[in-house]
């Protein structure tokens, strides 16, 4: 998928005006966010599980070379094939090659963010393979020719009438809008035929177990199970970070993933496969391929201040918690990963120059850090990226701060380096703003405060500073 991170501001502004989306997206708070809180409250060792989850991921990422190597060995031992792809292009081409070689006609796709990075479904359809998304949300998005809005609820911004129009070409606005059950049954009918005839599947991997070469898939709908059962070729794609060392780690990781994602104790289906079907089974794929993709992730790994982002298990909890995501929506972020996690990985994976608005699109409220099941300190990483865009990057292309902005902060620093200058600075600001000030507040101010006063009143500088007010009062002013 081609990043369009540079469009953040315009796309965000559009979404802020879209009443239907503003209403639809409320569900991420009332449904998912509250669901996670309830699930956490219902789990007596929740914080312990988070700590353990973080320890497992920290350890895995710190030894990623070892575990990747072990995983590849074990997948091969189980009779599967492993392909390491440096980028999305390489991964996509490899999967298309498999499909050509095996004379594939119909490909069913299970939800996978990594395959979104590859733009896989679109590319395979272009190559002539009937390629259909099977997660209901992804299916809706595919019909709408859009990209996912949310990590676990791709069509969260769509209304029932949107969905009705997508599922039924003849649906008109004058008809009563079908309810969610009717719409789901329409999709069930359409997709069951596809499952029955599919000869290849592409799934993601929620976790890959290094010691056994297994992959674990979590779904509520059952498309993950269909995908690992019906077609003769199963291809699983994963980012290189999606590893856990041991089977036992799944117990912890599944608990925190599922509770954080939907608030459920467990999803309807958790499927663990160790490759192709065993010799005594009646169904199951004859071939298993695992594609492990880099696509910029090593840039996250090599910097100790961004490495933690590879702990992400894609639960979407940070999106649900984020007040900014809930206003600007998923498409504003301009790439596969929206919300706070997107704001820290997209700039590194797709380029900070275009994505320079993403780290600034945050009030640093910390709700994402609080919600993260593996405790990724997202605000801290946003600050690192802001530093790089302001002045810190060694790549001049990435330093996108304006001369004016640099000047403002330089002046600010000079004002802060001595108390008399500080007081003088405040007087200067007060004087400059005096023409705009009425009763201690400004309704309209010149730049750089004009942005604030477009929607809010701005407080005026006080006539006397705290120091001068206290000087008559405190016995000791040091």
């Amino acid at each position, binding site marked *: 998928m081609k990043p369009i991170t540079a469009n953040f501001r315009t796309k965000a502004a559009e979404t802020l005006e879209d009443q239907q989306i503003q209403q639809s997206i409320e569900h991420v708070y009332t449904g998912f966010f509250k669901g996670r809180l309830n699930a956490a409250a219902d789990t007596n060792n929740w914080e312990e599980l988070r700590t353990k989850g973080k*320890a497992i991921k920290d350890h895995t990422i710190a030894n990623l070379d070892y575990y990747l190597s072990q995983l590849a060995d074990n997948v091969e031992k189980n009779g599967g094939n492993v392909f390491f792809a440096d980028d999305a292009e390489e991964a996509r081409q490899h999967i298309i090659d498999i499909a050509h070689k095996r004379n594939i006609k119909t490909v069913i796709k299970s939800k996978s963010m990594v395959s979104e990075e590859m733009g896989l479904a679109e590319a395979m359809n272009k190559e002539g393979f009937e390629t259909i998304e099977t997660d209901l949300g992804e299916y809706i998005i595919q019909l709408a020719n859009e990209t996912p809005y949310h990590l676990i609820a791709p069509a969260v911004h769509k209304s029932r009438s949107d969905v009705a129009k997508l599922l039924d070409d003849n649906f008109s606005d004058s008809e009563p809008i079908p309810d969610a059950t009717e719409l789901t049954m329409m999709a069930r009918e359409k*997709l069951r035929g596809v499952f029955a005839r599919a000869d290849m599947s592409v799934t993601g991997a929620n976790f890959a177990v290094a010691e056994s070469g297994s992959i674990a898939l979590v779904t*509520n709908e059952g498309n993950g199970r269909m995908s690992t059962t019906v077609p003769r070729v199963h291809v699983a794609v994963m980012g290189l970070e999606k590893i856990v060392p041991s089977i036992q780690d799944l117990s912890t990781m599944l608990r925190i993933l599922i509770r954080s994602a939907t608030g459920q104790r467990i999803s309807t289906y958790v499927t663990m496969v*160790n490759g192709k079907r065993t010799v005594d089974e009646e169904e199951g794929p004859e071939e298993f391929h695992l594609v492990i993709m880099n696509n910029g992730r090593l840039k996250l790994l090599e910097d100790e201040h961004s490495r933690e982002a590879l702990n992400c298990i894609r639960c979407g909890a940070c999106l649900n918690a984020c007040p900014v995501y809930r206003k600007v929506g998923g498409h504003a972020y301009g790439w596969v990963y929206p919300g706070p996690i997107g704001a820290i990985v997209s700039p590194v994976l797709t380029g900070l120059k275009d994505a320079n608005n993403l780290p600034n699109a945050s009030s640093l409220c910390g709700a994402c850090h609080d919600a993260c099941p593996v405790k990724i300190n997202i605000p801290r990483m946003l600050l690192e990226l802001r530093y790089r865009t302001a002045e810190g990057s060694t790549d001049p292309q990435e330093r996108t701060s304006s001369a004016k902005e640099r000047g403002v902060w330089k002046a600010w620093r000079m004002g802060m380096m001595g108390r008399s200058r500080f007081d003088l600075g405040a007087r200067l600001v007060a004087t400059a703003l005096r023409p705009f000030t009425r009763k201690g507040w400004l309704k309209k101010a010149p730049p750089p405060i004009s942005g604030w006063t477009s929607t809010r009143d701005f407080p005026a500088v006080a006539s006397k500073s705290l120091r001068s007010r206290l000087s008559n009062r405190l016995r000791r002013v040091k």
Partner: protein
Amino acid sequence: MADRDQFISKVTEALGRTSIIDPSLDHATAGFDSAETIRTNAQTAISDAREYSTQLADEVALAAETIGWKVHRASNAEDAGSIIAGICEEKSAKSVLRSSHKVLDDIVVDKAVTSTGANIETTAHDGKYGQSEIEESKAKAFSTDVGITGVDYAIAETGTVVLHPRSGLSRLVSLAPPTHIAVLCPGEVLASMDELFAMERNDFINGELSGSMNLISGPSKTADIEGTTVTGIHGPLEVHLVILGEE
């Protein structure tokens, strides 16, 4: 194609190292329990499942019900048979597919289902499977009205049925038919996922890990349209858990 060795050496380099270090030397997470501990954990999981079977059966019944299983408590084999027959009748089932779990023989499920006028078949592997047999097996599963299985384990914490597909237990019998019935015997309920994964790991250490595993927790569902939960998308619309009492 990215060469594997090259790829992994780039990872090593990104970690700021020159060679791979064996991480078992500095590991603090659960994955590195000794084989002895793992065996003990697995044994404890099984003996606890037996010792606390009545309590765990009550717990799994409660958890299962909250996530959408229709739970039935059967006092004996005959009772279980008539519960299953009742479900088949209600669904007007013409074709039923069952696994070869021993419990289904014990409750004489074939007789119960046949008495409703439905046809019942056991999924089985005849030893010489090719693509055409696979296609046939798939087609049959997709056109079956009810799938019946035992359970390999259940999990009290989550209301989950665990199945390891193998000969006599196809992957689709619990997935493709619109109704799935699982029959649970006393002593098969584990307390939590910890116990299950301890046993899985023990199997792995002993080289006995099964090719795949499904954890099934209620009917297939989705909330992808306006966040409204709808039961039945790709898997069964309705799932029943028949819990056999102690005898």
